[in-house]
């Protein structure tokens, strides 16, 4: 989902940068609030940030014959919501832009928007929706992680199709979706499973904290 450095027209760089900046700023404010209200959740924040660090460094092969990487953004979104996840994604993306020439500073806003905002936002909606109807949090986290990952890549495809609608928007969108979203499906399933495993351990070690954060289904508390 990384749009490479310089591969987006300046206008789009600015638009995505402004949108992402607002949400990341709100996320920083939320993290401060969480750290004040429930100081014990700081270690949980570190763990979900670390989870994102690992998953986004793994470039995995897909059945389409090309490679891509998962995002790890569903876990954070389910626990702390999309704005907090946007902050963590920003850290990962800056690391990769500066040290790995993966993504870039000019495209940072666009990349935060896909991996840090839309993906986590969908994951968060799906997760909360599942809990509302009393689906077990373990099943809910699978779908949150799966869709968070997939929608990140769908967002990138839309961003590129908006910027490069040649020959038509539809044709460009299909081309980018084929490159990104189709490749991503098996990876997103894998990410879902990995997130379920981590989630299961978190429920063993930190049931009270998860409950306090409102991250468990009503019948689990």
């Amino acid at each position: 989902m990384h749009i490479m450095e310089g591969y987006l027209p300046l206008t789009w760089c600015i638009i995505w940068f402004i949108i992402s900046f607002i949400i990341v700023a709100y996320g920083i404010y939320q993290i401060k609030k969480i750290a004040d209200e429930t100081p014990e959740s700081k270690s949980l924040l570190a763990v979900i940030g670390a989870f994102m660090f690992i998953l986004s460094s793994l470039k995995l092969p897909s059945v389409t014959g090309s490679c891509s990487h998962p995002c790890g953004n569903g876990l954070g979104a389910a626990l702390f919501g999309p704005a907090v996840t946007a902050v963590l994604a920003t850290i990962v993306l800056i690391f990769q832009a500066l040290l790995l020439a993966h993504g870039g500073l000019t495209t940072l806003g666009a990349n935060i928007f896909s991996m840090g905002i839309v993906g986590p936002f969908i994951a968060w909606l799906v997760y909360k929706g599942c809990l509302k109807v009393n689906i077990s949090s373990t099943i809910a986290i699978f779908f949150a992680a799966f869709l968070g990952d997939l929608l990140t890549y769908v967002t990138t495809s839309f961003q590129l199709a908006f910027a490069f609608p040649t020959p038509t928007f539809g044709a460009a969108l299909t081309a980018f979706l084929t490159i990104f979203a189709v490749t991503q499906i098996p990876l997103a399933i894998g990410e879902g499973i990995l997130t379920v495993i981590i989630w299961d351990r978190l429920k063993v070690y930190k049931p009270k904290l998860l409950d306090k954060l409102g991250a468990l289904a009503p019948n689990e508390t």
Partner: protein
Amino acid sequence: MKHKVINMKTSTLIILAVICIIIFIAPLIMYNGHGEDDGYFGGSDDAASEQIEATNFEPWFSSIWEPPSGEIESLLFALQAAIGAIIIGYFFGYWRGQGKEE
């Protein structure tokens, strides 16, 4: 408050891990013998960049610093994963040692 959090059995966790491994090994078996030279196992990010270049767009900015070789790049990727793994391992070990929460 009483917690009735239901956790998975170890066997379920192992089955999930195996499914995960199969998902990522399958492509290696399906395209065994193919490689980068005939267009397999390239990155989707690069494929998108080529698609963009096909519209005659000239990238107007390039990375301030790039890993000078594939070796250095894999070093930094490994470092990224290691940092994440240390943090998760540290806290999971710490929590486990603490025993169940009160």
